[in-house]
């Protein structure tokens, strides 16, 4: 199961990389977002996928799932969500100002 998820992470990262390397602003945002999702999957896999019950006292089953990666991705998701929202607003502002979403044209000139 872990192997499958890791392959999925690889596929997601390559899709994200492809999008990040494109010129359009929105595609770059989506690409960064997909890479972040891939990373979240990677973190949850890093602790081993679910083996037993919740890590609580009094649970009868012997094995229990590692709770730490779940706490980690919760934090990571929230941060990623906030940053993506901010970037989207900025992209919109940039589009309003420059009337373009092409990174090639947002390169800027020397000595302005």
């Amino acid at each position, binding site marked *: 199961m872990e192997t499958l998820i890791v392959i999925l992470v690889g596929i997601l990262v390559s899709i994200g990389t492809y999008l*990040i390397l494109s010129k359009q*602003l929105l595609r*770059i945002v989506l690409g*960064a977002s997909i*890479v*972040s999702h891939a*990373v*979240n999957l*990677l*973190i949850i*896999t*890093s*602790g081993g996928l679910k083996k037993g019950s919740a890590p609580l006292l009094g649970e009868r089953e012997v094995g229990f799932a590692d709770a*730490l*990666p779940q706490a*980690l991705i919760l*934090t*990571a998701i929230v*941060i990623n969500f*906030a*940053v993506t929202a*901010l*970037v989207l607003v*900025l*992209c919109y*502002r*940039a589009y309003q*100002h*420059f009337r373009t979403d092409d990174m090639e044209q*947002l390169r*800027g000139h020397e*000595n*302005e």
Partner: protein
Amino acid sequence: MRMNNGLIAPVVIPLLTGMLLIIFQKNIKLQRTLSLLALLAVGVISVLLMVQIKEGGIQTLQLGGWEAPYGISFVGDMFSALLLLATSIVSVCCLIYAFPTIGRKPEKLYFYPLYLFLITGVNGSFLTGDLFNLYVFFEVFLVASYVMITLGGTKRQLRESLKYIFTNVIASAFFLMGVAYLYSITGTLNLADLSLRVAEAGQDGLITTVALLFLIVFALKAGLLLFFWLPGSYSVPPTAIAAIFAALLTKVGIYAIFRMFTLIFYHEPQITHLLIGLMAAATMILGGLGAVGFGDIRKILTYNVVISVGFIMLGLVSSTPEGMAGSIYYLLHDILIKALIFLIGGTVIHLTGTSQLKDISGLIRLHPALGWMFLIAALSMVGIPPLSGFLGKVFTIQGTFEAGYYGFGAIGLAASLFILFSMIKLFMNVFWGETVLCEDEEKGSMKGLLLPIALLTFASLALGIGAEGIAPYVAQAAEELLDPNRYIQAVMK
């Protein structure tokens, strides 16, 4: 157990003050006073921490009473405490500079809370003893910086901020990837515990690969070789913000590289440390070319930031007590001096309304104090004794020679020449020559701008002339960095 609740104060004070100030959005006076008081309080606490660490060794705080490695530890060693102190000095000076320059609109649009959150993140990164917590504090100051870089909303700011944010978002994703790999290999995220487990298991090829992943992440944040985003994004925000960015943000990346590669990944220096050395050498050469080549004040200054990042790394590469002490000393010097020259450069642009060297001339007749303080800063950056850059350079270069890295040492010395050339070019063009502007033609006034610049010049002079006083602290910091067991024992006991 040396529990020390003071360790959390440099994080909590600016955080709570910032949150409070969001409520009092309209009351500018209160915002200014409270943020200044909060930063001064952090400065006092960092001095207290320095004294405690000097007497009692590395201080720790296990948050919530959860013992390491299960809880999150805060660790204050001398290296962190020195950086905290330098951060407080710089943040106070840049804040005072921001009062008259930043403008009403940004002040009402949460400039002060954001500034305090930035400092929260920086201080937290210096103090935390947990890898994931380090990521969180990185995000705290990065998100604050994302907003601050766009504050004002000019076209150039929007354009450069997009590149800055994308670069950092991707770097953060890689940071998390490294965290995930390291957790699946070792099963822990506490820095001290990580160090123990990596030492026990041996740093094999897999862990070295993860180490290189972390190197890429922190090199992006520090501007070590991967500095393509830096000149653009540090030259667009208002002066006070650019100065605090130049002084602090790359330094947090440098701090993280030092921490990771002295505490955890120190077993394979012939791979990791050599690579850091090569990156540092390339950084110094490329940064030097940039500093010499451009004719724009902002560009010259930002490329000088790049050069110093490369230079500071040389001490880590050498891993000798002298080299390490030199790096720490130079790092402190660089935090102060980069804020200083960015403030002076910003003031010149503020006065003349242009950043092109060819359009400025002879400012020293109207502003002698500004000119001479710039010269002091410039000579200090080059490393003229007894100014503050000198000792750092001597020890760092000595360290590289002792470790047998003659090439890196030579490039470090050559980089000083690049700095000398670029800074003197600036000085001669801006301050010497015929005075083209008369006083009432100037675009801005100097009112209230000289105080923070003078404070920083004084701090930098004190660091240079009072080197004898600060030397034992720096030596202790270098010893602690070179002996990971001290850190581990303080946390894991």
